[in-house]
């Protein structure tokens, strides 16, 4: 349930549905979730709310599809193996190729991009050997070469950033 393809029907401009407390929750806790017995209670105290309210907010954010999960982001290099990959496929058959990619074990991102290499995905695995096996297997099923671009050095690898709420209101 945590790893579905984003539903293209799903509304994307959910920002307007979020009130001040939702926004403070997101702004304050993309990192730094307390590791204590009742973390949502601690958050509630800091935000001037109640534990039940914070839990309800998180559940609602999840239902709206705004929140993927509450939890850790693991360092790919330490948590296992991962690799950015791309394939160049005929635009008309892109959806079918994307489906094959999504069906492969370990794929956690899969985007269409504006380039000859028009499908970009991240393949993950418990270790390097398994990663290569997964890529080789997928390559055979796709019938096109996979461009394999492992990370060599990370200069900034933390996808959390300030949400431009005001700009989203206008969008």
């Amino acid at each position, binding site marked *: 349930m945590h790893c579905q393809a984003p539903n293209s029907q799903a509304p994307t401009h959910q920002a307007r549905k979020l009130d001040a407390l939702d926004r403070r929750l997101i702004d304050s806790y993309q990192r730094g979730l307390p590791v204590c017995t009742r973390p949502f209670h601690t958050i509630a105290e800091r935000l001037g709310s109640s534990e039940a309210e914070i*839990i309800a907010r998180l559940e609602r954010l999840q239902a709206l599809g705004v929140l993927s999960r*509450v939890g850790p982001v693991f360092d790919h290099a330490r*948590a296992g193996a991962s690799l950015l990959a791309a394939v160049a496929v005929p635009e008309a058959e892109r959806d079918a190729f994307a489906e094959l990619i999504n069906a492969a074990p370990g794929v956690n991102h899969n985007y269409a991009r504006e380039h000859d290499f028009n499908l970009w995905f991240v393949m993950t*695995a418990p270790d390097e050997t398994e990663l290569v096996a997964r890529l080789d297997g997928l390559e055979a099923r796709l019938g096109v070469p996979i461009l394999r671009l492992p990370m060599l050095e990370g200069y900034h690898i933390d996808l959390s950033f300030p949400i431009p709420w005001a700009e989203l209101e206008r969008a």
Partner: protein
Amino acid sequence: MKTTNDLEFAATGATGATGATGATCHAPSAEAERRLRGLLEQGLPLDQRPWRTLAEQAGMAEDQVMTCVRRWQADGMIKRLGLVVKHRRLGIQANAMVVWNVPDERVAEVGRRLARETAVTLCYRRPRRLPDWPYNLFCMIHGARRERVEAELADIVERLGLGGLEHRVLFSTHAYRQCGGRYVREGEA
């Protein structure tokens, strides 16, 4: 890096959790830790005692779970812990992967400078794959709208003097999948 929050959080963890009661009398097995990691990849249960719930599922004690998580944070296995937001659903729909062809001797310097830009959310060096792929530096810029992201990039190129570097912007046109990594082997979680 945004270390302020991390430090604040480390302090909170030290005072707000189990305390030094010595409740943990033995270390959890490697097997239990692997189960815990698999569970964590799916996110915390949204209840009053999420660590206890995870502990029950992983076959560990609550304080062992918290100790594990703190250790993984300290050693860098966990980069951040908190709300993982789906930016697209918030309307942050312009997602540009900017790829650069930087002379090898300059790539680390350019990468570090790009990483300091607030608009840049990720920045990596990757191998070239010639002749198809000459680009060795990647960064991501997200924004509500395409024009805004293009303006941000133009501003960065101008200020950092990167106009001489060959680069391309690959906007995403569709997200087929967007979710957290699954590193624990099937059946191990």
